[in-house]
Each structure stands twice: as C-alpha cells, then as structure tokens.
C-alpha cells in the first residue's frame, strides 16, 4: 500500500483563518439570483485554466496520441490548449508523453526549469508514470515524478486522446481550485530554493536517482501489521 502524499507526516498547515467573505454555498445561492461574486485570484485562475499552452515535446508513442489529440478529430483547441509552443519559455504545460530514458531525463528537467511560473506537468502513459514495461530495466527512469512535480497522471499504454483530454480537464479543475502540484508544501519548499536539480550521469544510474525534496520511495505498509 502506498501512502498518499497527504498522509505523509508533514509540517501542519497553518490553522485556516475564517474567510471574511461569503462561503461557497452562499455565493452559489447569490449566483442563482444573478449576482456574481469573485476575486481577482479566481478570475486569474479561470483565465489560466482556459489557455494552457503545452510544450511541443514528444518522447515516444504517447506523443503520437498527443498529436492526434491536437488534430481535428479530437481537437484539443476546444479546451484552449491548441497552441503547442516550440519554446519552453512560452509554455505553461509540460506533457511528458512517453518513455523517459535516463539519458533523456536531464534534458526534460532542464526544459521544466526553463518554463516560467505558473507551470503544470502531465505524466502521460505508463512509462512517464512509473517506467511502465521498462521499469525493471537499466536505462529507463522509473517515473518523471522523481524529479518534477506532476499534476495529473494519465494511465494507459498509450492513453487514448480522450484520456489526454480528460487529464487536461482534470488539470483545468485543479487550476481553478488552486490545487495544482505547485501548491503542495513539499513542492513549494523545493521551488523556493530555485531550479529543480538536474541529475548527473553516473557509471550506472543518474546521480542522484531522484530528487528527495519532492519524491520519496513508496513506504511499504502491510495491512495486517499497521
């Protein structure tokens, strides 16, 4: 059993200060009467969520599905994400679409470092999530979340374009709710220290093989012995 991120012991969040404004239920009630209450923050998130520009960056067969998702049949433009940018400086979203080999991993992290904030990451396909069928091999990174905070994981080998669209809609929900990976305390701390460290090539593996600030190996919990 893998302990979810939230269950890990972390520094307790500061006690929530009661919001001065109306609650969500009250605002929904007001909206029904034609009165829209919002904040600049919410407006900005709403805008961000509808113009997520992905980086034009493909790694393996998942990239073919990503390209299909951008074409007319699936049409990622319906969600405001049709502008695939060739430069990381202009991109908001890194879709890690495919197998990340250990040789490629430093370049992926460098691209991530070059993207301006706010930025989001989708791990697309079994390889980007965990190494997939190549997990037990010697040359494939066992998941990009070792080095980059991932917002949405899309399983599949490869995932259908619909799955990518669903993942994008999930990301939009997260952006609107302000629940992206960047809001996790561990990621906040890692981001505050600057760039994400780019690993070096070692004689057998990357050095270090993971960024301990944002990723810890899964803790094995036996259900019969808590």
């Amino acid at each position: 059993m893998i302990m979810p991120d939230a269950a890990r012991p972390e520094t307790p969040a500061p006690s929530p200060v009661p919001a001065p404004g109306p609650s969500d239920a009250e605002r929904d009630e007001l909206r029904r009467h034609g009165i829209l209450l919002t904040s600049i923050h919410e407006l900005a998130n709403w805008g961000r969520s509808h113009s997520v520009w992905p980086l034009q960056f493909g790694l393996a067969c998942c990239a073919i599905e990503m390209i299909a998702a951008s074409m007319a049949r699936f049409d990622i433009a319906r969600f405001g994400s049709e502008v695939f940018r060739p430069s990381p400086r202009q991109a908001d979203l890194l879709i890690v679409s495919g197998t990340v080999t250990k040789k490629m991993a430093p370049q992926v992290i460098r691209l991530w470092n070059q993207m301006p904030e706010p930025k989001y990451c989708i791990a697309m396909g079994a390889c980007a999530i965990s190494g997939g069928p190549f997990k037990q091999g010697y040359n494939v990174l066992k998941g990009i979340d070792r080095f980059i905070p991932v917002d949405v994981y899309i399983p599949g080998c490869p995932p259908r374009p619909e799955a990518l669209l669903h993942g994008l809609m999930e990301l939009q929900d997260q952006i609107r709710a302000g629940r992206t990976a960047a809001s996790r305390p561990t990621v906040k701390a890692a981001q505050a220290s600057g760039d994400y460290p780019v690993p070096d090539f070692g004689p057998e593996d990357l050095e270090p093989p993971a960024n301990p600030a944002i990723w810890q190996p899964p803790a094995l919990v036996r259900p019969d012995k808590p």
Partner: protein
Amino acid sequence: METPEQIQARLAARFPAAAVTLVPNPAPAGMAALLVDAAHARQIAFFLREDPELKLDYCSNATGIDWPEKEIVETTRSTLADPAGGPPRTIEQKTKRIQPGYLEVVYHLYSMARKHGPVILRVRTGNRTDQVTLPSLTPVWRSCEFQEREIYDLFGITFEGHPDLRRLLMWDEFTGHPMRKDYVEPDDYEWEPTPHEEVLEKAKRHYAAPEKEGTP
C-alpha cells in the same frame, strides 16, 4: 544470385590467405552465413561491394551476438567384449570440454544495383575480454556507422577504423555493456504490486518472507 557456397568458393580463390567458412543456418530460411576472419574482413567487404556479379552496395543491418563460454559434454560409447562369453557391454565415456566464448558481428548485405540479397557476413572476435577489436566496415558501407556504434555501446566490440566511435544509446559515463549475457544490471528494485518471475525473485531478495501466523 550466387549461392553462399559459390561466393565462398570465389572468395577462397581470390583470397587464399583468408579463412572463409560457411555457417549453416538451421532455420527454415536456411540462409547460410559467410564467416570471415577479422584480418581480411575489410578486404573481403570491399570485394563484395565492388564485384560486378555481386555488387553488394547496401548494408541493411549490422548487429552483435554474444556467445558466452559453453561447456560441451561429449559422450563416446565403446563396446567391450565379455571374456566370459556373455553379451558385450557398452561403456559410455563422458568428456567435458569448454568451448571458449566470443563476440560476433553480423552484417546483412543487399545489392541495390542488382536487386538481390541478402548475403550474411559474420566476423568473430578472439574472446570476450581483451581481444575484442574488429575492423570497422563503415569505410565500406556508410550505413554501418551508427549500428557499429550501437554494437560498441551494448556489446563492447571496438571497431578499428571507425570514424566516430562513441556510445550511441547509453551516456558516455556509463560503464558496462548491457547486451552481454553476463551483464548484471544495477539493483534498484522498488516495490511492485504484482511481482512475478524475475521480479518476484528480486522482491524476495529485498523483502524477507513475512512471519507466519502462530509461529513464535
């Protein structure tokens, strides 16, 4: 196109010093390969490319094979007459011999000009440890360049005369040659939800068997 036997006979006549042998192929295709010695490999390759009959101007594939050291048990039977007049006894004698290992490069050659092929060319190294240098055939067929780099990367065969011999797939700092049979990959096992086969063996090594209920 000439059969491999005919090509072998012509090569033997043209290069009397070279050792050219036929390696039979038991597969249904039955395409026998020409095994040439490393010292004459490039000469023979040039000949195969320039010969007007063959004109093998395209190398479609170059790959490596690792043949580890193999123990071969040979059984010899001898009959021994019984001095008492009974039926003769059969005695089996087993002898073991070690067939030394070697690395091999296989080239698949076609002719664009003559529209025939393939002719399969094999070159073997002396052993798997220190005599692993072979002549590069990149000067003969340009398409061998990346494939010989890949063989160098994954099998550790050094190609003499290669214009740019670097690792192709793994990074430069990487040590080891992963496609060799005796390559031991780094042990970076992680928890798996449904381990099986080799992964199960790894899982057993990393996690001791759980204590059985009721045992003290």
